[in-house]
């Protein structure tokens, strides 16, 4: 029995695992002419007549031929998607703390039920606001809680994800600069190399020059470099804190003051807020804007690039730039309403008012916790991380550059450079072997300033037993690297898919993310020659 690794009455430190493997066709390949999921009755004459009027009103916009949809029965659809899900390693199946930076916390199932209540799930965004008071109340009250967490004055919950929120922020900075007639004078945005890549990307989209600051020897943004970077041309400073190294920049107020001294704005990328809820706020750190990911920090699921919620907060002087409508409350009439009155300088960022299911989950999660336990979330997340930090640092072949001897915040960026030097096995090969034990391990964002990197973030959700199981797998694969390297090099052995060429995803000539593109680019490719 292994007490050390926490699986009580179970004589292994980790589980045996084998992923399902289906030679699953694409749904279009399953299509059979004439096969149907639902047979609809013939439309009544009145309905048919109304329908033909609509079609004739469409004029040239009406389709000439029906859409090329797969024709398939309900049961086959169900089995198809179940097979695909079995070939995945989903959040509800695995210990996914190796997806560091992603804050993979538990999304309570009861909140799914709330979000799926017909009163919320079945509303239409064009309904009159008097009929969706509950939905508007959820958005409004979520905003109030985010105001308390950040100290900022107003939030917009329209953005469907973190990058979209950053686009809102860059757009606000652009509008703010332009309105003052400073477009020619304030044309630079400063960020750091470890800040999330969407910060510089959004700044570039909005036509700013980017100035990137590298870290100092301790892994914090280099203060002297920052001094050299800041000038009258500085429009804004976009930064994450703590960055993905898990090291908090305790001089952050000096950084933001430096930017304010030259008349620039400071924006706080709070994608790593899970370390700081109820502990440190954007306002006191000197930020003018910030954003939170409701879909990670506040428990709503990530949704693979959406639908999530990137909530953008600003100080009072920037409220007028937030995309309308905001959701406001009329105390006198006791009603919530869509507030278009704000003289917004930027157009809306997303259709309608945001992703209500994601906001609802975040709202329910915060309401269930309350202020005290929200703070406890961060305390436990940091504690869990430092527990794992100590264990991982004792493992052979692993290190963590920067800030030697310091504790970390909610995540750590480790390096397997030593492992690679000693065994020739890279972190990219290593992660493939983790899949054989049913676990994830992610490398990190580029650029790989930390060589052979991987990032672990246990959040507050995982128990000691689960962390121990994850650690046991990590240790086992490290052991294999030294003792049976070929097993690691040829991994995964138990996954649905062997190796994939990631570079395809970045090569427009070869990527195919739709069936149509696939048929076009790979016509005949897999057929016998």
């Amino acid at each position, binding site marked *: 029995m292994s007490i050390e690794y926490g699986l009580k009455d179970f004589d292994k430190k980790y589980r045996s695992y084998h992923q399902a493997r289906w030679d699953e066709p694409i749904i279009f390949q399953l299509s059979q002419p004439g096969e149907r999921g639902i047979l609809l009755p013939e439309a009544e004459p009145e309905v048919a007549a109304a329908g033909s009027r609509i079609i004739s009103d469409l004029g040239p916009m009406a389709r000439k031929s029906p859409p090329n949809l797969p024709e398939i029965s309900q049961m086959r659809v169900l089995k198809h998607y179940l097979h695909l899900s079995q070939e995945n390693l989903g959040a509800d199946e695995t210990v996914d703390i190796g997806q560091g930076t992603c804050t993979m916390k538990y999304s309570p199932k009861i909140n799914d039920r709330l979000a799926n209540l017909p009163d919320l799930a079945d509303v239409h965004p064009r309904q009159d606001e008097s009929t969706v008071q509950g939905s508007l109340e959820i958005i409004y009250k979520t905003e109030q809680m985010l105001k308390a967490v950040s100290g900022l004055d107003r939030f917009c919950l329209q953005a469907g994800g973190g990058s979209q929120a950053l686009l809102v922020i860059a757009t606000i900075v652009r509008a703010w600069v332009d309105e003052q007639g400073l477009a020619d004078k304030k044309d630079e945005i400063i960020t750091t190399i470890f800040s999330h890549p969407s910060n510089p990307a959004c700044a570039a989209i909005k036509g700013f020059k980017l100035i990137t600051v590298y870290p100092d020897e301790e892994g914090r943004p280099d203060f002297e470099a920052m001094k050299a970077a800041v000038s009258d041309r500085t429009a804004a400073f976009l930064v994450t804190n703590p960055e993905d190294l898990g090291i908090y920049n305790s001089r952050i107020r000096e950084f933001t003051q430096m930017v304010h001294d030259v008349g620039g704005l400071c924006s706080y990328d709070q994608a790593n807020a899970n370390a700081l809820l109820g502990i440190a706020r954007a306002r006191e750190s000197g930020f003018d804007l910030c954003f939170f990911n409701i879909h990670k920090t506040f428990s709503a699921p990530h949704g693979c690039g959406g639908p999530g919620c990137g909530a953008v907060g600003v100080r009072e002087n920037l409220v007028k730039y937030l995309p309308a409508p905001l959701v406001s409350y009329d105390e006198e009439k006791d009603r919530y309403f869509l507030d278009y009155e704000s003289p917004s300088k930027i157009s809306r960022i997303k259709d309608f008012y945001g992703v209500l299911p994601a906001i609802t989950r975040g709202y329910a999660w915060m309401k269930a916790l309350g202020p005290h336990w929200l703070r406890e979330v961060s305390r436990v997340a940091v504690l869990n991380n430092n527990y794992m930090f100590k264990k991982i640092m004792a493992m052979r072949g692993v290190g963590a550059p920067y800030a030697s001897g310091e504790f970390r915040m909610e995540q750590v960026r480790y390096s397997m450079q030593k492992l690679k030097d000693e065994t*020739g096995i890279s972190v990219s090969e290593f992660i493939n072997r983790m899949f054989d034990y049913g676990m994830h391990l992610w*490398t990190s964002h580029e650029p790989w300033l930390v060589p052979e990197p991987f990032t672990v973030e246990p959040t507050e959700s995982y128990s000691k037993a689960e962390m121990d199981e994850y650690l046991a797998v990590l240790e086992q694969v490290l052991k294999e690297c030294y003792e049976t390297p070929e097993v690691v090099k040829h991994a995964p052995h138990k996954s649905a898919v062997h190796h994939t060429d990631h570079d395809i995803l*970045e090569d427009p000539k070869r990527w195919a993310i739709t069936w149509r593109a696939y048929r076009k680019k790979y016509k005949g490719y897999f057929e016998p020659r």
Partner: protein
Amino acid sequence: MTKVRLGLIVNPIAGMGGRVGLKGTDGEAVVLARERGAIPLAGLRAEDCLRELLSCRDQFDLWTGAGNMGEEAARRVGFAPSLVGEQKDVTSAGDTEAIAARMSDVDLLLFAGGDGTARNVCAAVGEKTLALGIPAGVKIHSAVFASSPGEAGRLAAEFVSGGHLTEKLSEVMDIDEDAYRKNLLKAVLHGYLKTPWKRGRVQGLKSGSPSSDAEAQSAIGEEAAAILRAEKTTLFFIGAGTTTRAILTSLGVQGTLLGVDAWFDGQLVGTDLAERDLLRLMEEHPSNATKIVVTPIGGQGFIFGRGNQQFSPEVIRRAGVKNIVPVSTPAKFLALGGAPLLVDTGDGSLDLELEGYVRVISGYGQYTLYKVRRG
């Protein structure tokens, strides 16, 4: 199916000088090295590399130099290579060059040696053959070497197995060994070899960096070219390198890869200039500011003092330390692993003045604040 053709050249005397206190084995130094008891190491390094290729041995044909120039190392690992050249007890730079020339049609040419070996390979195959250095020499200033013999082998194995590798031109540098033995460092840029390159040390789906070094260089070229176009009254000196060459390409002119070119008021006013030419041009433009555009050369991050000695202390001082315009791809920063950019102009006080933080053009509309230190 046509097999991949791999070439291997071992410079058997490379690396012998290091352990016996010599700085290289060029010229007569190899005799001295042998007298001091130096043992050949390059073959062992090549073996480390070849071991990584055993698992895909069926997918390629191996060609090596005869005897100690590759054959022996290959046989010790278990390969039966096809041979190029004749076995000799005493080999020279000429042999490396001759064998490389005969192997110029292989798909990937591996060579174990140091800067001198890279220089010989470069002289023989130029930029037409894909080549990769197995580090085995005392001097490794060139950027054509893998970080270790094992890494060279793994990269080669990936190439053989059809992995997605890109190519880039990498600097071949060598220093004057006689001067080096007198503790004088004179590094010269001799040319470029086409090397395989694994993008940004592999994948990363949230990546934001350009997918190839050439793309990054082109973006830098566009940004810097805009500055050159805008500052019509500034005399620009464009240093050696593929990144700086991209600037002139963006301006629609053909620059010198290994030398310094000059640009003024919308046109190229000098190519492949020596120090005296640069000083003369500055004299001809007494009322104009001069800016020096440089890129880190070699693997160690030198922006002055390696491969661009035309930028003498006098040239730099007359231009002014504030008028240095460094350019660098993100990949070069990454390769530095957090180490600063370096200067070694030969003038200690000037090096001190150049220390601090510089704005480096690192992309289109992108700058990086980076630390500079004395080398």
